[in-house]
């Protein structure tokens, strides 16, 4: 774990993150909703993908108590949907987003409202002059461990993340975390051996291995308490299905942008993910965490 000390990535490298997220902003625009949110939505009756994504953002803003706050951090800000929502609908003073994707940062630089800022850096090296009132992290935690890491190494990597969030938050501040994870229905080794996991780890998300709930629970010890936890895996199954429908509806434009091979790889990935969430091989956790501050 030497690279922890030097501030380098323990989980997926910058190159690995860019392999996935830098396929091109235009490609993702073809199948994501207009807010360009690339994580599981929170569906209610009558929702479109866009309203379900906004419902999800509002959930995390509410859970982290970010509304009306002076300073909010978004770790893994993607194309800035949460940052925009914080600034335009929740009266936040300053919103800072972190991403490792150059394509996302470039897009954000042109599209974010005043008061929001995006930095191309990982949480390991991020420092702030003042602590944040709230932290939101959606769809980044999945990338913090690699397949080859042992159980204790994975927990140590997650622990480092939670400790960093603890340092970056005000006392009593909240972190609202969303991550997909291996479901409890199979052992990790069985999940790794499946053809679907081999494909996803090899071709879609290199150097990335999702967590298990028990690892998250171990890793928060001493830094956070869990206030609420929900598993909304069927919400993610539905999100993947809508993404796949959108991608297919725009297949010709997608082929022009990325070619047939990449398009069919993404179709397969979205179909497999839909099945994973539908069957419980994958879970979707939304966890409200409160910074632990025990009396001395």
């Amino acid at each position, binding site marked *: 774990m030497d690279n922890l000390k030097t501030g380098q990535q323990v989980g997926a490298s910058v190159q690995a993150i860019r392999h996935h997220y830098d396929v091109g902003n235009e490609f993702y625009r073809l199948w994501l909703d207009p807010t360009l949110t690339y994580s599981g939505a929170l569906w209610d009756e009558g929702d479109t993908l866009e309203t379900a994504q906004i419902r999800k953002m509002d959930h995390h803003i509410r859970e982290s108590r970010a509304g009306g706050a002076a300073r909010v951090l978004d770790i893994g800000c993607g194309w800035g949907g949460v940052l925009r929502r914080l600034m335009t609908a929740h009266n936040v003073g300053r919103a800072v987003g972190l991403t490792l994707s150059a394509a996302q940062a470039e897009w954000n630089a042109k599209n974010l409202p005043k008061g929001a800022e995006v930095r191309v850096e990982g949480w390991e090296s991020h420092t702030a002059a003042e602590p944040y009132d709230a932290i939101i992290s959606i769809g980044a935690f999945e990338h913090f461990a690699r397949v080859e890491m042992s159980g204790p190494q994975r927990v140590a990597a997650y622990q480092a993340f939670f400790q960093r969030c603890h340092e970056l938050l005000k006392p009593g501040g909240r972190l609202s975390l969303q991550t997909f994870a291996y479901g409890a229905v199979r052992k990790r080794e069985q999940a790794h051996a*499946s*053809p*679907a996991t081999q*494909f996803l780890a090899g071709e879609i998300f290199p150097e990335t291995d999702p967590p298990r709930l028990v690892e998250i629970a171990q890793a928060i010890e001493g830094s956070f308490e869990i206030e609420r936890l929900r598993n909304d895996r069927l919400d993610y*199954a539905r999100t*993947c*299905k809508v993404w*796949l*429908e959108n991608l*297919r509806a725009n297949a010709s434009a997608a082929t022009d942008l990325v070619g047939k091979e990449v398009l069919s790889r993404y179709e*397969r990935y*979205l*179909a*497999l993910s*839909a*099945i*994973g969430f*539908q*069957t419980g*091989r994958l879970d979707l956790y939304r966890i409200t965490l409160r910074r632990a501050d025990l009396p001395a």
Partner: protein
Amino acid sequence: MKHLDKNVEPAQAEPAGANRQDIEEWLVERLSERLKVPPGEIDVTVNLARYNLDSMAAVTVVGELEEWLGRSLSPTLFYEHSCIRAVADHLAGGARP
């Protein structure tokens, strides 16, 4: 259509008119190939989960089925219905003949 058996029933060669039974037979044939189980051992009324169809294979079979029927299908088709017969019923329009 290269995946279709040469000896298929005429109804199977014309998927536009595929009824519940055609689809059921197509699914049994395709799944028996994927699962390496003789067609006679596949029970169309048994929960699909019992056959341990892995998700990669499920995606491939749904893709072949889409090609055959000429329409888009849900990627989770095999996990939304209790058995092969229920999948075929759903695809044929709900009502069993």
